[in-house]
């Protein structure tokens, strides 16, 4: 009999295989009994059309039947069909971003087709859209037990987004240090985004890299993104390692039923620095970007292709960028309501390796020995998801994924092949079960293998096996109590193993329409990456040494928040939070400049964040403002955690005058108090002003923007100047 490698990394023979067979048998028995318990004998079909107040069909509306797993999304003609609806009466809930949620109770279904017409009124703000990340199943945003922010594709387009970080960084409580994302002070800065404490998902599937434990914001074409869900606070109870600060889920667009082509062409130029002596070249520095997406369905098969090409001279010396993205998505709908979604994306990015400036008086130039440095990065992301609704109240989802990332020549053009591809194949089975209409039990098992290798940290192989379960109990329409947890067993084969339990409990109370209160308490953790454990390198004069004894870091978090609609014109949100971290992994620098990652920090981050959004003058004017204050303390060193601002805020004013839209946005973050490498370097607060304008004519939109309009010079990490003033113009088309 063939020998298998079992979950503990040791080799086992027939006995373990028999045990595996028994395990599978028990799982299938559970599945079938659950299906039998919740099956209904008679079923009908519910169909209808979703339209706006003026009678125009609304594509993309979420339709679901309360107390079941049944649902659909309206097509480009606004039509929807929900099959296998149990006979009797049901409650239909229809929601969509930008529209008021519609609830139709007492709909009778008795075998035959039932037609329902749904009219949706425009909401003053974003409405109450369906979100899927906080609980790993669909729920209304207002019913989520954790703090969730949603950014839709429309908003990404309005912002003239070039990088996802630009849009996500404007969310309260979220801060970027270059490409390092920090939610509520969870993260500072690490080179190459190593050991991210925020988990990046694409369609619910992790894209954290196997070697560096980092995330790559360029992993998919921008036009693929339908919406971004940002869950603040630890998500380890459902998502495990890396989610200790929060979870960001990029949800890709569904293929269109009819041929749909989206195009965007953008070109821009960088201004000179504000100080003439900093000008380092006579060339006009510029950037260009082209995005295209084509989508169409053929019967039950929907197809979508995307491509992005971005080039830039950069605004600094040795700062050129050349990015390619391609992607393909296929959605296949089967009889009986099951669905298979396949998504694949490939990216290649090559950019100059600007590590640090030559000097503060020549901040846009690199030292002579860094002029040839380059960073090449390639990534392939593939995932397949199969949704199998077995009964109206029981369904399975199976996910298979594969992520390959490859660092090219890391900062040394003289050392090719230093990195091997990091590979992360994974699979997950998730069951959603409504044993009673007021309970939604989500459970599953996730398995991921990580293979990585580099001359800097050696070859390593590991895996994580993680069962999880969560019950969301809604005794009436106003209360939802969510409780659950996940157990993670992480094994670095032949080296170390760790077990972690991450529990969570949450409460959501909606005393009346437009008001929601939330309370959450839970645990989070992050496994040390092989990079942090085994790295041996000389980085910019600093000698990095390994620490094989590095353990995972863990945290407890709590938050309490309220969301309140202000009539038809506004919404307020306020959240208080606190996170305690133990064994936090941090690079510790000794007086010789030797760096070692250690479980050194005991930290506490507490704070408050608020957001307000208003529309007035018949929705022609809008004002959105948010602010977050936090106290990110390193309790051992008795100083602020490095690279965390205490206060940041974004204020956006908007005007919509017919086809013309105007926006001004101001971002502020106070001066970072603690940095790690060059504490004596001058630092300033972040002050960025941006203007945007757009004019729409049919399917075409012409946009222009000025970023960093004050030409404000700042550093987020030492000795790397932030982006200087630029102006761009773009043309977009959305043709169906």
């Amino acid at each position, binding site marked *: 009999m063939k020998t298998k490698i079992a979950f503990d990394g040791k080799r086992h023979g027939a006995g373990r295989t028999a045990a595996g067979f028994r395990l599978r048998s028990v799982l299938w028995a559970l599945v079938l009994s659950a299906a039998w318990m919740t099956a209904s004998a008679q079923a009908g079909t519910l169909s209808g059309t979703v339209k706006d107040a003026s009678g125009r069909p609304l594509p993309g509306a979420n339709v679901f039947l309360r107390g079941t797993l049944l649902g659909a999304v309206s097509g480009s003609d606004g039509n929807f069909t929900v099959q296998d609806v149990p006979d009797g009466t049901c409650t239909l809930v229809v929601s969509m971003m930008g529209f008021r949620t519609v609830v139709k109770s007492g709909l009778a279904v008795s075998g035959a087709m039932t037609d329902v017409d749904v009219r949706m009124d425009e909401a003053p703000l974003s409405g109450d859209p369906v979100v899927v990340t906080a609980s790993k199943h669909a729920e209304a945003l207002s019913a989520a037990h954790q703090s969730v922010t949603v950014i839709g594709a429309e908003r990404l387009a309005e912002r003239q987004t070039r990088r996802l970080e630009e849009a996500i960084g404007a969310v309260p409580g979220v801060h970027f240090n270059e490409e390092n994302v920090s939610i509520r002070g969870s993260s500072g800065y690490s080179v190459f985004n190593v050991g991210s404490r925020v988990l990046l998902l694409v369609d619910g599937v992790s894209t954290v890299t196997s070697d560096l434990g980092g995330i790559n914001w360029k992993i998919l074409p921008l036009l693929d993104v339908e919406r971004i869900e940002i869950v603040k606070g630890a998500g380890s109870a459902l998502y495990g390692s890396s989610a200790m600060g929060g979870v960001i889920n990029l949800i890709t667009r569904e293929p269109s039923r009819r041929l749909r082509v989206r195009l965007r062409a953008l070109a821009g130029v960088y201004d000179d620095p504000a100080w003439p002596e900093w000008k380092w070249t006579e060339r006009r520095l510029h950037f260009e970007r082209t995005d295209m997406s084509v989508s169409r369905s053929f019967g039950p098969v929907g197809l979508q292709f995307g491509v992005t090409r971005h080039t830039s001279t950069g605004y600094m010396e040795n700062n050129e960028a050349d990015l390619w993205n391609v992607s393909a998505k296929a959605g296949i709908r089967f009889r009986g309501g099951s669905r298979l979604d396949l998504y694949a994306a490939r990216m290649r990015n090559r950019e100059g390796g600007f590590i640090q400036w030559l*000097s503060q008086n020549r901040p846009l130039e690199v030292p002579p020995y860094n002029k040839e440095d380059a960073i090449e990065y390639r990534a392939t992301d593939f995932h397949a998801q199969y949704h199998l609704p077995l009964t109206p109240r029981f369904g399975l989802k199976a996910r298979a994924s594969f992520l390959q990332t490859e660092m090219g020549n890391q900062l040394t053009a003289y050392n090719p092949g230093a990195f091997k591809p990091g590979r992360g194949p994974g699979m997950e089975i998730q069951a959603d079960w409504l044993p009673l209409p007021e309970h939604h039990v989500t459970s599953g098992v996730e398995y991921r293998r990580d293979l990585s290798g580099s001359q800097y940290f050696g070859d390593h192989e590991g895996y994580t096996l993680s069962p999880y379960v969560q019950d969301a109990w809604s005794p009436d329409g106003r209360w939802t109590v969510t409780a659950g947890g996940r157990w993670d067993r992480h094994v670095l084969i032949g080296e170390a193993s760790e077990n972690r339990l991450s529990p969570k409990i949450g409460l959501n109370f909606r005393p009346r329409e437009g008001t929601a209160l939330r309370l959450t308490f839970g645990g989070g953790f992050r496994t040390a990456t092989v990079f942090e454990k085994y790295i041996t390198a000389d980085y910019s*004069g600093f000698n990095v040494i390994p620490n094989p004894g590095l353990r995972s870091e863990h945290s407890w978090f709590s938050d309490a928040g309220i969301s309140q609609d202000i009539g038809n014109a506004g919404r307020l949100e306020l959240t208080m939070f606190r996170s305690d971290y133990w064994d936090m992994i941090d690079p510790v620098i000794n007086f010789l400049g030797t760096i070692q990652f250690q479980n050194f920090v005991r930290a506490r981050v507490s704070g408050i964040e608020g957001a307000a959004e208003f529309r007035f003058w018949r929705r022609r004017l809008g004002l959105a403002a948010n602010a977050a204050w936090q106290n990110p303390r390193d309790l051992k060193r008795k100083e602020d955690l490095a690279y965390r601002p205490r206060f940041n805020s974004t204020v956006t004013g908007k005007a919509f005058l017919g086809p013309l839209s105007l926006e001004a946005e101001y971002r502020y973050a106070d001066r970072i108090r603690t940095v790690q490498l060059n504490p*004596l370097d001058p630092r300033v607060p972040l002050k960025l002003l941006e203007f945007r304008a757009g004019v729409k004519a049919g399917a075409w939109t012409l946009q222009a923007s000025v970023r960093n309009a004050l030409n404000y010079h700042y550093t987020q990490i030492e000795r790397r100047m932030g982006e200087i003033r630029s102006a761009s113009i773009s043309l977009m088309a959305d043709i169906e």
Partner: protein
Amino acid sequence: MTHSNRTGRRARRAGTLAAATCLALLACTVDHGLEPIRSKISGRVFFAGDANPDITDEVRVAVLKKFPPKDITELTFSEIIFGNSDQPPDTVPWEIYLEPGSYEIAAVIWKAHNQSWNISDIIGMWGGQFIGDQLIPPFPFVPIELKNSRSVVDTIDIRANLNRVNRDGLIEGTLTFTGEWPANTGVVGIGAFSEIPKSGDVFDYLLKNIALDYSVPTFTGSASYRLRVRSTETIKYVALMWINNAFDFGGIRDIGFYRNPANPSQPGSVNLAGKHVTGIDIRVDFAAAFGGGT
């Protein structure tokens, strides 16, 4: 009033508002954030001695606000004034643009190939003097003052002696540790000295050493070491120095030294005539070394 008139009036109001906003913005003083530093310290470095290009990576001037530094990040470095070419020119200009303030030390620091910066590899100090190849620091320090954002102090000439780091010899041996390592151990260094430094005197440790290497493994029972030294030096003392994990220089202390085989209570000197000496072993008893606590 017709709809078009109302629309026109609103458009004019919006235009006026936009123009007024633009004028107000233009009238403001614009904050551009970081700006060039115009105050600086500069001078020349006068080299003496012979460089060893086989082991030399680079040489820079570094300035420091307050001695001793908490760690290497408190030093501000100049550009490279000498790389790993065969020999430096007799004199090289240097400059560092710095924020206004008081700077206690300006020193020339040498960096070895494939090694981190080692602040004990000081080969020259402003105001310091050499007796032979030994550097005698100025005492007390005379701070360099940059009084305002336009201050320029351009008279900081430094003599640097490359002989201090022209290490063509090698000593090696084993280190044996008995007892419990203190939990607050930061780093342990091994040093070869021309004279026995005064315990706890950072200057003595930094300037009387012939070579000092802080990469001794910690929390281990034994280790071997190799220390590059200048073969023409007379080594009177080879010792292990311990620093706590707060990297507090004031807490530096000897925890063991190479003993005279003929008289084990006294330090042993090392004869480098053969350039390569083995068997310079050191035993550390933590109970004895930290009898009074850490």
